[in-house]
C-alpha cells in the first residue's frame, strides 16, 4: 500500500477496496484488527460477509494509520451507536465513511468534516423503475423514464447513490427518506449541491469500476478529490 500525504485543507480521498482479496491481504488485515473486532469477525457464518468485514476494517486501520502516523493495530477505533466504526474523539480531525456492494468497497476520508459515500453494483438496479415511481421526486422520475431503456437502470442507480451519499453524511440509522433529497440536478451535471436542512452538501458522482457506480457527499466542495487504490490487485469481481 502506498504511503500518501493528504493535505488537511478540505480535501477528500476516496479509496477503492477490492473485497475479493488474496489470502495474504486477509492475513495482514486480520493481524491488524483489535480483539473485539476479531471476535466479531469470527461470528460471521458466511465467508463473504466475514471477508468483507475483515478487509474493510483492515483497510480503515491501515489508511488511517498512515494519516495518523501509527501502526494499523494501534488506530483507536470504536463503535458508534449504530455499530459503525469511528475514530475515538481526540484522535485527530479525520472523518470517514464506508460503503460496499458485491466485490467493491469505497472508503471516503476527509479532514474537512462529515463525509458520506455510497457504491452500488449495476446489477442491483432492478426494480429501479418501481422504486422511482413510488418514492422519487417528479423531476427525477421524469429523468429516468425519459432515458433509453438500456440506460434506465444505470440512471436510477446514479440518483440512488447520490441520495444515499447525502443521507449517510447526514447521519446513520435513517430508513431512506428518499423524497427529502432531490438530486436531479446533481445527476444531470455529475456533481452539484443538495440542501438538507440548513446545510448544503456537495455531491459528486463517481465511476469506481466497470459495473459499479458511486457518489461522495461533503459539507463543502473539496479543494481536491483524490482516488487511491487499496491493494490494487485485489479483484472487484464481476458482480454475479
Amino acid at each position, binding site marked *: 500500500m502506498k504511503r500518501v500525504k493528504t493535505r488537511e485543507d478540505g480535501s477528500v480521498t476516496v479509496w477503492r477496496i477490492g473485497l475479493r482479496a488474496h489470502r495474504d491481504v486477509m492475513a495482514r488485515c486480520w493481524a491488524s484488527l483489535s480483539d473485539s473486532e476479531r471476535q466479531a*469477525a469470527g461470528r460471521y457464518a458466511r*465467508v463473504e460477509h*466475514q471477508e468483507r468485514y475483515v478487509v474493510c476494517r483492515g483497510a480503515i486501520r491501515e489508511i488511517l494509520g498512515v494519516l495518523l502516523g501509527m501502526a494499523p493495530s494501534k488506530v483507536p477505533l470504536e463503535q458508534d451507536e449504530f455499530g459503525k466504526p469511528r475514530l475515538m474523539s481526540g484522535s485527530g480531525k479525520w472523518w470517514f465513511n464506508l460503503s460496499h456492494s458485491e466485490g467493491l468497497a469505497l472508503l471516503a476520508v476527509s479532514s474537512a468534516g462529515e463525509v458520506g459515500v455510497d457504491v452500488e453494483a449495476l446489477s442491483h438496479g*432492478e*426494480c429501479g423503475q418501481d422504486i422511482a415511481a413510488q418514492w422519487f421526486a417528479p423531476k427525477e422520475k421524469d429523468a429516468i423514464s425519459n432515458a433509453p431503456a438500456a440506460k434506465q437502470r444505470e440512471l436510477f442507480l446514479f440518483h440512488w447513490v447520490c441520495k444515499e451519499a447525502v443521507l449517510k453524511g447526514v447521519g446513520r440509522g435513517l*430508513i431512506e*427518506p428518499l423524497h427529502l433529497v432531490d438530486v436531479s440536478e446533481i445527476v444531470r451535471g455529475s456533481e452539484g449541491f443538495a440542501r438538507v436542512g440548513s446545510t448544503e452538501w456537495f455531491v459528486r458522482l463517481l465511476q469506481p469500476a466497470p459495473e459499479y457506480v458511486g457518489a461522495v457527499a461533503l459539507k463543502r466542495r473539496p479543494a481536491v478529490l483524490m482516488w487511491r487504490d487499496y491493494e490494487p490487485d485485489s479483484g472487484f469481481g464481476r458482480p454475479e
Partner: protein
Amino acid sequence: MADKVSLAAGGSELWRTVQRLLELQRQAPPLCAIPRNGPIPASFQQERLWLLQQAHPAGTAYHLPTILRIEGALSPVVLDRSLCAIVRRHEILRTTLHVRAGQLEQAVEAPPPTILVARDVSEAPQDEREVLAMACAKEIIERPFDLERDWPLRAMLIRVADDVHWLTLLFHHIAFDAWSEGIFFRELAAAYEMLCKDAPEPLPVPALQYGDYAVWQRRWLTPTVLAPLQEYWKESMQPAPEPLRWPADGVKASYSGGLAQETNAVETAEFRDAFSAWARKEGATPFVAMLAAFLAALREHTGQERPYVCSPVAGRTRPEVAGLIGYFVNLVLLVGPPGHSRTFREYLTAVRGVVAGAMAYQDLPIHLLAAATPELPSPLARVMFSYQNRPVKQPALPGLSLSVKRSAGLVDADADLFLTAEETREGLLLSLQYSAAIFARNDAERLLDAVRQTMRHAMENADVVLKDVGMAIRVDSPGPMGASAGGADGREYVAPADDLERGLADIWQRVLNVPRVGATDDFFLLGGRSLLAMRMLAEVKRSLGYQAEPVVLAQARTVRALARTLREGGGNKSAGHGALTCLQDRGRGLPVFLVPPAGATPLQFASLARHLAPDHPVYGIEYPGMDGRCAPLPSVEALARHHIEAIRTVCPSGPYVLGGRCFGGIVAYEMAQQLTGAGEQVAACVILDTVKPPGVKMPFWDDLLGRIMDARVIPNGESLPGWRKMLWVPQMAFRKIWRHFAKPLAARDSGIPPDHAPHVRRVHTACEKARRAYRPAERWSGELDVAYCARRPALQRVQERWQEHAAYAVFHPCRGAHVSLLDEPYVVEVAEIFRKRIAAGEVGRSPSLMRCEP
C-alpha cells in the same frame, strides 16, 4: 480394505508396517553425488509434472509466480548477479527435459551470464504505472513453457519509480516447491548482501544436486521396493472410490483452463486452540480433524459416499536434500471412509487410520499409483488439502523494504479445489482455492461455510450421526454464528403461517439471495440494506399489492411483523405514512416523534436522533405540500390531526413522546392536546425554542434586538469576531429584502431545487398564517418541557408565557443559538431533556412535582 486400515491405525499392524518401511529405507543406497558422464534420468515427480504439462501445453497451472515490491536503493546489477549465483549453485534451475528412447531425461546447461529482464514504466503517468507494471509481469507469468528449451526460472525487474521496483519471478513447479521457496529467498538475501560487499564467491557449490537425487531415487525405488507400497495402496483402496462429481456439473473435466480464484475465512486464536484441543482429545491431530470436516462437507456437497482428496507431503525424508531447490513434493491420496451411519467421532477415527496409513506409505509416487491401479478415477488430484502449522517466512533483502504482491486469478488452477489451513499468530486462516471454470464463487463460498459449520457442529457434539450433521449445515440460515447456529440471530427457524407470510418470505429470499427465510428472521440481520429494502417493498407492491412505506421497516423487521403491519393497513392496502420518516430505528424505548420548523425537513433532527440512539427510535414528520403534490394545511389543528394520523401508523397507541422545533413546537403542543383529548397518554411534549408561543405577538424592537443578538453567533455556535459582527446585521437585512423581491433567484442561491421553492414558500406562508390564528382552547393537562436559548434574556420572559397553556411547564435554558440548538455539542443537552422526561414518566413521578414538595 477400509476396515483393515482402521484396525491398523490403532494396532500393532501399523507398527509392523512402519518397521518394515524403515527396513526398506535403511536398505536404500547412499545418497551422494554421482559422476556426470551422461544424461540423468528425471525423478518420478518430474515425470509426473511432465506428463501433466504435455496434456495441457498452453496451461499455466504449474506456474508459480511471485511479485516482490522492493522499496529502497536497489542495485539491479547486484540483484542480477545474486540471481545468477543461485542459478549457478542449483543445477535444477538450468535444467531442461527431453525424452530419449522412451525415457525422460534431464540435461543441465551452463550457468548464464545474466538472468534479469529489465523493464521501465517510471516515465508513464503516476496512475498508470502499476497497471503497466502488472502487464509487464504478466508477460513472463502467462507465457507457456516448453520444457525442452525453457529454463524453469524467469525473472523480470520492473522499474516503477526511482526507488520502487517490482521483481517478478516465475518458477515452473517441475523444479520448485514450497520448501524450495524458503531456500531460494534465504540464499538470495545472503548473495545480495555479499555481492554488495563485492565478495568473490558468494555462494559455495553444494555437495549434492537434484540430478543426484533423481538417480538415487531410481536406484532405490526399484520394483522390489515399490511392490509392498503398491500392494498396500491397492488393498486400502478396495473398493475404488467413484469419480468425484460436482453438482450441476455435466461432464466437466478438470484442468480445463480455469483460473485459480480463492475465497478466504479466518478463525480467532481461541477457536484455533479450542479446535486443536478438541482434536487431541479425540486422539487426532488438527490436520486429521480438519480433513474429516472437509471430507464430511464434500460428502454433503457431492452426495457421494467416499470423496477423496490428495495432500502434498514434502518428500524430503533424507536430510541430504534439505538444502536443495527442486520438486520433491509427492501427493498422498486420502479416501474418505464410508460414513453413512457413523457418528462424527467414528468417522474421525476412521479418517485417522486413513491418514496414518497414507503417511506411512507416502514414498510411492502418486502417478505410479494411478498407473498401477486402473480402477482408480483419473485424474486423482482433483481436490487437495493441506494444513500448515509453521509460519511461512517472508522474503527480505538487506537494506530494502520488501512486500509480496499476490493476486488470485493470475494462473490456472491445478486442481478443482484446494483447501489450505494455516495457523498464524492471530488465529487460523482458511483458504479455498477453486477453479473458476468449474465453480461459481458462490458455490466455493458455500462449501467453505460448510467446512466451518461442520467443525463447529462436531466440536459441540461428536456423537451426532454424519447425515444429521449434513442436514443441519444445509438448512442453517446465514446469521451470526453462535455455538449452535440455528436460524438468523441464533433463533430457530419458524415456518410462515399463512399465504401473506409465505409470499413475503418468498420475496425476501429472492431479494436477499438466501436459501431460506423464517417468519421471525430479521431483514437487516439477514444482510438486508437500504436498497434491498426498497426493492423488497417495490416487489411487495408488485406481487402482493400492498403499498408499504419504508418507515414501517423501523418497527416491522421480520416477515411476521411486516405481514401484521400490512394487514392492519386496512382496506386500502397501504401501510405506513408518506409523511413519516424514520431517523433512527434502534431501541426498545418509547419512540420519539419530532415536528420540524415550518417549511423545513425532518432531517435536521439527525444529530438528535443519533443521541437518542440506541434506546429510542426517532421519527420525523414532514409537512404536507412540501413537494407540491397537495395543498398545505391551513390550520394548526389540521396539521396536528394529519401528524397524529401519521404517527398512529407506527404507534397505534400511547404513550407518545412528542417534540417540535420553532413552529413545530406549536404543532406538537396541539398534537398533545388532541391525543390527551382522545384518551391517549402523552409521556412528553418538548418545545424546542419556539420563539413565539401561541397568542404572543412580540414587539418589533424586541424581535429585531433578538435577531441582532442571534446574529453574533454563526451557525455552528461560535461567536463571530468583532468586525464581522458589524457587517452581519446589514447582511441579514439585505438578505431579507433580497429574498422578498427576488424569490426565484434566492431560491437558486439557497440550493432548494427551483421546482420546490414555490411549494416550500407556500407551506411556510400557510404555517405563518396558522400560527397567527391559533388560540388553544384550554390548558393542556400534562407537563410541558420548554427548551430555549439562554443567550436571549428577552426571550425568557416570552417563554414563560407557555405556562398559560399547560398545567405544568419546566424550563430548560440551553446553550447554543436558535440555529445551532440541535447541532453538536448543544444537542447533547437537548437529548438529555427527552431522556430524563421519558425515564421520569416510567418511574411515575415528574421532576417538577418533586420540586414542589416541601
